[in-house]
């Protein structure tokens, strides 16, 4: 539905959760807009996470206990930061392994000589 915009969007479906978890692992704590910009920057505009996909996922991960939030006053507004909980940190190990095995599987299928 509204996973990620931009070309090849369907290819990224299902990867949004590990992407966010990995970003939070690397950056400590981040807020929603920062996540969208970071992904855009790191992938050189190849991948753009839409707000309609990002926030529901962040809220679900928070409800599942993988993320915790902290609020910070930044002048005339309040910012909500997300960071990984202990359970979320454990999840990074699992999701990284899953993605690696996913990439390897794709390599077997699309580039059997390299595999």
């Amino acid at each position, binding site marked *: 539905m509204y996973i990620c915009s931009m070309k090849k969007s369907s290819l990224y479906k299902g990867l949004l959760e590990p992407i966010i978890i990995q970003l939070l692992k690397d950056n400590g704590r981040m*807020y929603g807009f920062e996540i969208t910009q970071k992904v855009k920057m790191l992938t050189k505009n190849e991948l753009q996470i839409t707000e*309609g996909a990002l926030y529901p996922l962040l809220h*679900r991960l928070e*409800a599942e206990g993988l993320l915790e939030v902290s609020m910070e006053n930044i002048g*005339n507004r309040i910012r909500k930061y997300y960071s990984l909980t202990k359970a979320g940190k454990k999840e990074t190990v699992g999701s990284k392994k899953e993605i690696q095995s996913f990439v390897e599987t794709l390599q077997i299928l699309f580039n059997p000589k390299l595999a």
Partner: protein
Amino acid sequence: MLSNEQIESLFIFCEKHFVKYYEVQLELVDHLANAVETKMDKDHKLTFEKALEEVHRDFGVMGFAPLVSEKQIAAEEQSRKLFWKLFKDQFRWPKILGFLVLTVAMFTISKFDLSIFKWSFVSIMIAGCIIEIYSVLKIHILLAQTGKKFLPGKISEFVPCIFFPFYVFYFPSFLDKNFLSAVNSTSSTLFYSILLSIFIIMIIAILQTISSAKRSLIKSFPEVFSVT
């Protein structure tokens, strides 16, 4: 950086687009403000209103609706999970002693006098109902004083669902004229003793859930709750 008036207009914009919960509004306002600022920095001719319109369009045809509904589902799930966690905690050592003492006490009363057992059960059920209503009302009053709508307010919707079986299936049987003859066996009095202990533990878990939701709100939004 946007001015205070512009931030205020973002809150109004959220309200107009059916984002009623303050927790969601706060996050959206910061997101909209960031996105608007980025657009205005790139194009100095762009007005605030025009930039906001463009940012809102980026949310897609459904606008903010998926965000609000998902947050609502996530918050309800979080409350339910917390309640069951606190409930299950009561069955861990040493808290389980409380459950055992309650069950043994009720069972002993039943052996002593069934009529006292019956009225103890009825009184505890009524007291439980009063405590539930009082604690739900208390959090509602606290939230109402802020003039804002918060997601933990929805706890009041899930509390009656949890206690529904007790009041619908078991409570009426106690008021039945034939109750005393119906429970005149060790297994049935033991069953009702366990049931009552579970009910009391559920009340404790509900009170802990509500108090945890309250603490979390006060911690997350001190600027809103410090004035109440």
